[in-house]
């Protein structure tokens, strides 16, 4: 990893320390040395640290585990013009994301161990945050034959997903869940029935009717999720719904969890903070997949996050350049960038009193790390020092020109935000510092 600063010991003093992995929320100091978290407690003070320690007075700002973004598309290999590990990791660092989980829908698809190896090496050489790939569930993302789940996991794939494609064939899904269980591999599935999507481009309902756009019903998602939860019951596999967006899906999710199934779910920051009306005059930066839903669905999603029914909040970072976005709405590509704005957008929910800050941070760091079985998401002594410092009250305006991502397709274009990351530390090194 590139170094922005020497790896001296760091004392982050006088901070509100939030560690969701231990339900810890105290005022105190955090000492980092040798890339590890030494301790986090009240009153370590400048006297109790090794010589040469860099002491940073946080003045009451929040310290939390670095964010683990469970779903981000990076262009490498094959689409480096949209995003590289270097550019994505710069954006991630600026957004407080210390671990990116990149998606396999690249070119070539990440469906064999050699490509996993390429991604890991490339990221090691060019990225300033941690990068772990998910591998494809089916070869070539064709939804027919499962990939070498055992060998891919051994090569370093942390989970399996077909990106934004759904596996229509239930038998393939069943066999994959069955086979993956032997390796304790997590299957992450985008639940949208392509036949029910049809030619739809946005949420089905009044607003789509007014815009004259074809709609996608909530059922497109719920039908597939319901099928999958039944298959999880049948097979005993470990399953994660990649992006849940509507109230009906939450009911399915609740039933599955109540039945004790190994089912978890993510919601994207877009669906938690935006709704279909934000599309306004055909703004293609708000065309995402699944589509932005009605306000009732968004509120249900936020409530589900607050109570823990939604396990993970992810950015669904998907860089699209002008050629794919500067088109009529129906023809534009879906996707929005989000690495850099995920936390700030999430803080809107905190400031609105809808979600507690520790619950938000848990869904953005601790839970994804647990589900994927990777380091991070904790401030325990001895854990790798992936730490962020957040000023939760700083007002700022999202200026696309200042965003570090190669593409500027942010749905929060020119939006006002309150709160942002001021320092990001990965493995004890500061990789981002706000001016």
């Amino acid at each position, binding site marked *: 990893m590139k170094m922005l600063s020497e790896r001296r010991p760091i004392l982050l003093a006088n901070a509100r320390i939030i560690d969701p992995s231990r339900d810890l929320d105290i005022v105190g100091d955090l000492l980092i040395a040798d890339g590890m978290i030494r301790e986090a407690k009240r009153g370590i003070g400048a006297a109790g640290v090794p010589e040469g320690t860099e002491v940073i007075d946080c003045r009451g700002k929040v310290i939390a585990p670095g964010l683990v973004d469970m779903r981000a598309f990076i262009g490498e290999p094959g689409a480096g013009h949209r995003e590289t590990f270097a550019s994505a990791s710069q954006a991630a660092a600026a957004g407080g994301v210390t671990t990116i989980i990149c998606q396999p829908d690249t070119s070539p698809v990440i469906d064999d161990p050699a490509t996993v190896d390429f991604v890991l090496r490339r990221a090691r050489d060019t990225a300033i945050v941690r990068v772990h790939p998910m591998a494809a569930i089916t070869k070539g993302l064709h939804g027919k034959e499962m990939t*070498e*789940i055992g*060998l891919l996991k051994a090569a370093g794939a942390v989970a399996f997903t077909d990106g934004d494609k759904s596996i229509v064939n239930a038998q*393939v899904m069943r*066999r994959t869940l069955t*086979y993956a269980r*032997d390796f304790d591999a997590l299957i992450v599935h985008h639940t949208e029935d392509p036949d029910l999507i049809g030619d739809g481009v946005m949420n089905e309902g009044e607003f789509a009717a007014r815009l004259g756009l074809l709609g996608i019903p909530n059922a497109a998602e719920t039908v597939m999720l319901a099928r999958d939860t039944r298959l999880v019951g049948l*097979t005993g596999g470990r399953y994660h719904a990649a992006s849940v967006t509507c109230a009906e899906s939450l009911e399915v999710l609740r039933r599955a969890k109540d039945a004790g199934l190994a089912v978890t779910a993510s919601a994207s920051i877009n669906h938690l903070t935006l709704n279909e009306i934000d599309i306004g005059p055909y703004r293609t930066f708000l065309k995402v997949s699944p589509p932005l839903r009605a306000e009732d669905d968004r509120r249900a999603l936020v409530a589900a996050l607050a109570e823990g029914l939604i396990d993970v909040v992810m950015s669904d970072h998907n860089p699209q350049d002008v050629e794919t976005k500067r088109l009529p709405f129906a023809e534009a590509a879906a996707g929005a960038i989000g690495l850099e704005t995920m936390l700030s957008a999430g803080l809107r929910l905190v400031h609105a009193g809808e979600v507690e800050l520790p619950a938000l941070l848990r869904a953005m760091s601790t839970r994804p790390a647990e589900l994927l079985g990777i380091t991070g998401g904790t401030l325990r002594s001895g854990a790798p020092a992936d730490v962020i410092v957040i000023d939760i009250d700083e007002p700022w305006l999202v200026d696309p020109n200042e965003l570090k991502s190669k593409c500027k397709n942010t749905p929060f274009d020119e939006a006002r935000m309150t709160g942002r990351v001021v320092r990001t530390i990965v493995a004890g090194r500061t990789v981002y510092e706000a001016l």
Partner: protein
Amino acid sequence: MGPTNRAFTLITRGQRFGSTPVRNLTFTILWAPPVTLLPEAELAHIGLTLMTSPPKSSFVLSHRHLLGIEGLSAADITGLLDLGEEFVTLNRQVEKKQTSLRGRTQINLFFEVSTRTQASFELAGKRLGADVMNMSASSSSMRKGETLIDTAITLNAMHPDIIVVRHHASGAVELLASKVNCSVINAGDGSHEHPTQALLDALTIRRNKGRIEGLLVAICGDITHSRVARSNIMLLNAMGARVRVVAPSTLLPPGIERMGVEVARDMREGLADADIVMMLRLQRERMNGSFIPSVSEYFHYWGLDERKLSYAKKDALVMHPGPMNRGVEIDSIVADGAQSLIREQVEMGVAIRMAVLEALSRNLPNA
């Protein structure tokens, strides 16, 4: 098979049943005669006197057909193995010809291609003196759309004594057996049973380990599609062995644990303490869709190589029903190694099929 073939039918006329006069009331009494009273047993004895070196075993199988291991008792199995043992000796002599099936007609009816099973049934029949006819599905009326039952009825009209059947559908052999008057031997039906394979495996194990009872046998690989696995599970359980199946979950049929086996999903756990490691062929031709990601991953995790074999007991022996996919489920070094019994299995195949033919022929009517 079973009692219905030996049923007596009593027809009573004019009896009163309750208050209603009943005519032609039919009672069917299921009755299996004691083995000692069978006229066939006497016939077998006569046959024995004609043999050049008659089997000492006077074992008679109390079944008309051999449709599966299911239904055989431990005594049946032991009797067949003992008889098989005698034929092993015979087969190693220069003069292998016997006469116990002289005058009998044996039809090998193979709806699925086979090398070793068909060849060993043919040899077995010929060595016992039977006239053996081979029919395969590719060169007969079955090709022209004749149904299984019509084929059975046609062949039955030619008065064969024994029909050996292999069919790609589970239960097909039993269906055929219900339509013919002769003895039927199952040479493999779909993913259901392959009883002579299990018997020859048992004979191979007994000759090398001296016993079957108490051994731990690990059956590894494509359990879902394997008739060999099912027959072996039943036989080994009947003989008091411990059976463990080892496979990826996609190749384990749901409910397998209720067949009296331990289930393991990785080879280290599955082969621990095993006396016998029985590999199965990955039956890609029976697979509809993808059960495993690739051959290379399958071999990496479930293929038997020297490292994985070292998880089993030091003196563990390796078996495979054949044909082998080298480099898929078994490494050549292991297949041809000192612990391998694979070639001996083929030898036992002829002997055990002779034993089955011999035992069933002792039950054949003298007509």
